[in-house]
């Protein structure tokens, strides 16, 4: 994969080990260019969340470590940065499972998201932007966040990440456990945010949702990137259709087929 001048995020050949022994990422390379939405697909346990941790400096919390390779953001190496420096540099994330501060109010959650923003007018502008993107949050500003519905919580989690006005937004399975209608809304929001100038790395198991809005996509399996291409290419790809979209020639594949498919490991290089 050739280097490009406008690569915003550049993950090169990253290897991650937990507890000094468990090798989870085995040389992952991936790139997000300015203005792009890039999807990262993969089954449970493939290492998607681990890759995001490697990018954002959260590995330490999990006793994980980058043992090889490097992560560059805007051309600067960031693989040993403090998480807060990365947020300041312009990378925000929506963690898997939303992880909103359920005991705090909606407003307090958003303020926590703006922790790194010292400029008052910037913080106020960020707040207004979030309220425009998520009008449903406005009447609930003073409510305890934990009492909101799953969809509203996901909106809040995305809003919280946007408070820092990031250049790159990382989303870890934002559609998880949400009704199709809400998933639809969220993908629209992601598109809007992207049009407003934020690049997006979207981690998903919901390949349909992700590929329909992504410029490019990667498929991660067992800690390795096994496929990449434009969103449209992957949507048309037979393997993806079979395995992730469940629309092979014979319609929905059974679990046994999937297992035998995995055994064949057609994607591995």
């Amino acid at each position: 994969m050739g280097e490009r001048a406008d690569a915003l995020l550049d993950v090169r050949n990253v290897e991650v080990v937990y507890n000094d022994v468990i090798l989870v990422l085995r040389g992952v390379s991936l790139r997000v260019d300015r203005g792009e939405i890039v999807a990262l697909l993969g089954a449970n346990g493939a290492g998607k969340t681990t890759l995001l941790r490697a990018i954002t400096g959260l590995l330490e919390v999990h006793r994980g470590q980058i043992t090889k390779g490097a992560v560059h953001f805007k051309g600067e190496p960031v693989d040993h940065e403090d998480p807060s420096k990365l947020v300041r540099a312009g990378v925000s994330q929506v963690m898997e499972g939303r992880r909103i501060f359920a005991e705090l109010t909606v407003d307090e959650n958003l303020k926590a998201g703006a922790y790194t923003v010292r400029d008052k007018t910037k913080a106020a502008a960020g707040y207004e932007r979030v309220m425009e993107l998520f009008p449903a949050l406005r009447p609930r500003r003073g409510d305890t966040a934990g009492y909101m519905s799953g969809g509203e919580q996901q909106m809040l989690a995305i809003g919280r990440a946007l408070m820092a006005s990031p250049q790159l937004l990382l989303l870890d399975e934002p559609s998880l456990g949400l009704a199709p209608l809400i998933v639809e809304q969220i993908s629209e929001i992601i598109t809007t945010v992207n049009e407003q100038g934020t690049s997006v790395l979207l981690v998903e198991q919901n390949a349909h949702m992700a590929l329909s809005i992504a410029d490019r996509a990667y498929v991660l399996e067992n800690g390795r990137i096994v496929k990449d291409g434009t969103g449209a290419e992957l949507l048309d790809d037979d393997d993806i259709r079979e395995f992730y979209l469940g629309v092979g020639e014979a319609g929905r594949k059974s679990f046994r087929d999937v297992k035998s498919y995995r055994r064949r490991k057609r994607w591995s290089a």
Partner: protein
Amino acid sequence: MTQFLQACFDGLALGSQYALIVMGFVVIYRATGIINFAQGGALILGAYMTYNVSNTWGWNFYLAIVVSAVVVAIFSILLQRAMLQRIFRETIGVIGGLLLWAASVYNGASHAVGVVVGVVAGLVIWQLAARIEARVGARGPSELPLFGAIMVTIGVLFVVRQIVATIWGFGELNVEDPWELDTTMVGDVILQNAKIATIVLAALGLGLFFIIDRYTRIGIAMRATHFDHEAAIAQGISTKLVFATAFGLAGVVAALAGTSAASGANLITPQIDTIVFLAFPAMILGGFDSPGGAVAGGMLVGIFQNLVKTYVAQPPGWFPTDDLTWLGAGFERVAIFVVMILVLLVRPYGLFGTEEVRRV
């Protein structure tokens, strides 16, 4: 009626002290999950600092309180740095060195000899600790089991007691506060001015805490970190700053508690921190992680304790017996522990504590 109101007022004053003490424990527990017994040391230090600045240096008393609060806050923050930021061997070395310095001075050695003994002992202990550390792979109490961290805080408490005794002696000292033994009468109720001052001090200190906790950036960061450490880090929140703030605030309330425990009719000794243990029922009733519960628990226990004391000394007319002296002097202190146990049977997390962190 007068008797009842009197007990309530005295209880409110005592409860204010409890609330200040409990708040110190709660704010640190909330940030780190540790019961920090070094809070007792901070309280001692607060009392003696106020004494030193106002009596020895002759500064204005209110200024002395401020100086004391600042010094104890700095002490707490440094302590936290040492304990939680992975410099285990240094902490142990410094603690050991100071202890031996204090012990040798206490046993009659001159200060010069004491300093030499302390430095040598500190270096030796440091090296030993480094060896142990290398063997077990622990890098600091934050990586030790919680129990180990709590033991370290108990160690710090004893060290502070020793050092304070070395500097200011074991004797009773009287802080020259503006209230001394003056009183104000409201009807037939006698309000000791020092107790009024305690209530005001607590209201100011706790009010400041609540404003910071509720409305400021760092307050929101503290609560967010308590709820979900990793998600807070992901927002760019600095846990170092959160910990430092928690310990600093704990230091301030400890200094206020110490000053109040030293004022009025009270005298100070290096054992002034025993009040900390009397505050435990308040902490457990309030729930370890609830600042509001700290205040409510403190007030309830303070008032209850004084009511028991009053009516045991002089049982009300309707009571079947008019002599309860067989319960023993200081029964009220037993009573609060009994009530604590009874409440815990019904509500294991205290009256105001959160049962489990809600992760929706």
